[in-house]
């Protein structure tokens, strides 16, 4: 079944796109990440122009995170106060990111910068996650209790001025820290077509020192707002959001996300983290190879 995508300007197989959305949805439901880090590269491998892939995956992540936010919100797992600060930072970041995207496009380096960012971010996070998960599993096999490390935010955070109280997160820190974190994920969302959950969650735990109970819900809350803002930024600057493509991806991913949540309940969290680390590393390695291998196209055409 072929369908013509009006913005991408080509025909795609409906089932492939829905299947892709479904696969990513299952992963996002299982691991609590938006899954943009998989959708965007996979769409590019399938032949969709990179700019369209990046712009159209943003609303797909919005859709996939809705059910997560609803579920976590119902059981008090969202720190709205913290989420609002993060989202504000994200909104500013996405606008700045939009300008950066244009700038890099004009210089002709967007094709290099995006994969390099993927390799650095995914590679780093993947290694940290894998080490963490393997360490936890080793402790379990030896029958030891995991040492509960005292949750403290990073010493640099304590130096920032104007402290606010974030009750649900159990924190008394400067709002500048989450604002900057939100800003960074906002820029990433525009440039890389990712929600930024895979960087936000570890940063909230290890840098801000938030209570684990509200981390996933709050991160999804911020992702929802930032991807929505990013969609608007893309629609108005690059004009590459393909509604038909987004719709197909959404159909797959919202159903997939529901299935993924159920799989996640039946699995040990350590194994889940190990699998996610593995997937993240595979994508990073594939991107790295893509940069060093001789590309199939030496020349690229850009209309003036």
């Amino acid at each position: 079944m072929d369908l013509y995508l009006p913005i991408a300007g080509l025909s795609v197989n409906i089932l492939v796109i829905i299947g892709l959305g479904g696969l990513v949805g299952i992963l996002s439901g299982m691991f609590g990440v938006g899954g943009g880090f998989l959708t965007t590269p996979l769409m590019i491998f399938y032949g969709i122009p990179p700019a369209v892939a990046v712009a159209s995956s943003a609303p797909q992540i919005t859709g996939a995170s809705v059910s997560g936010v609803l579920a976590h919100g119902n059981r008090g797992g969202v720190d709205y106060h913290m989420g609002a600060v993060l989202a504000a930072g994200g909104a500013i970041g996405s606008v700045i990111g939009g300008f950066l995207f244009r700038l890099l496009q004009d210089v002709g380096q967007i094709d290099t910068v995006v994969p390099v960012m993927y390799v650095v971010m995914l590679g780093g996070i993947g290694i940290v996650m894998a080490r963490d998960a393997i360490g936890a599993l080793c402790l379990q096999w030896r029958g030891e209790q995991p040492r509960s490390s005292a949750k403290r935010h990073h010493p640099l955070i304590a130096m920032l001025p104007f402290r606010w109280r974030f009750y649900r997160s159990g924190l008394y820190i400067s709002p500048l820290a989450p604002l900057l974190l939100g800003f960074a994920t906002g820029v990433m969302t525009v440039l890389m077509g990712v929600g930024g959950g895979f960087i936000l969650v570890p940063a909230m735990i290890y840098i801000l020192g938030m209570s684990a109970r509200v981390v996933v819900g709050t991160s999804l809350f911020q992702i929802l707002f930032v991807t929505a803002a990013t969609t608007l930024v893309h629609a108005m600057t690059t004009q590459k959001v393909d509604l038909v493509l987004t719709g197909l991806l959404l159909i797959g991913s919202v159903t997939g996300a529901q299935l993924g949540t159920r799989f996640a309940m039946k699995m040990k969290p350590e194994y889940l983290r190990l699998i996610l680390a593995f997937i993240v590393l595979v994508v990073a390695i594939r991107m790295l190879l893509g940069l060093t291998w001789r590309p199939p196209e030496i020349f690229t055409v850009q209309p003036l």
Partner: protein
Amino acid sequence: MSGMSPKGARRCAFQKRPKRAKPLLLLMLAPLLISAESPRLVPDVSQRKIEIIYSFTGAELLLFGAILYPGGRAPSDDAQIAVVVKGPSEPVLIREKRKIAGMWVNADSSDFRSVPSFYALASSKPVSSIVDTRTAVIYELGIDNLQLSPASGGDRAEDRRFEAGLIDLKRRGGYYSETDRGVEISEGVLYRARIAIPARVPVGSYTAETFLIEKGRVIAAATRKIEIHKSGMEAFVARAAERHSFVYGLTAVLLSLALGWAASAAFKRLRE
């Protein structure tokens, strides 16, 4: 699903029949005219309009017509036909990747002022064997004879390198093609050629040119216009994205929120 255009578009292909009066008049006046009067072309295309709709996977154009020889002259044996379908030209920037510090990075770039977005040539015999190089360049017969107007103005070798890269890219994308013996001539008077239009075809005003070639010279030429555009829902979405970008973006956000919420509600009901 094969993506031919809707019925309406095909019907109009036959509305503009070539006028019959002229050849008849010529025929009557034939004895009075000089015998060296050159032949005329009466071309047509199967579709004047190609509409890209949701199921568009490409189309096939049929270019056909007749060669009229004045004075009831017998058709010449070495008359050859070449047809060219050309898309709207646009200026492009082409970049070349080079390995820098172990990574492939865009390094050099060059501008070309007029690059046809689509070019398909079909001829009854290989073009190089029926016309000389000069004629081929004048009529832009053959991909290598396209006038792309490089804007650099400097290094000829560099221009040629970028030109080769651009043409290779267009060729592999299916935008540029050349078919030797792609035109069939029957009885020396009727000709027909098929040209495939790929699914990723750029929209705009196309031209279908037909050339009658004899003894290495173009002795008659005729042009027909073909419009390729998006229609229906596709055109609506593309136009909305361009003209009402804020509303379009807002629609995308609302759509994603609604679908996300609907899925979560539906599964909740399933669980209960």
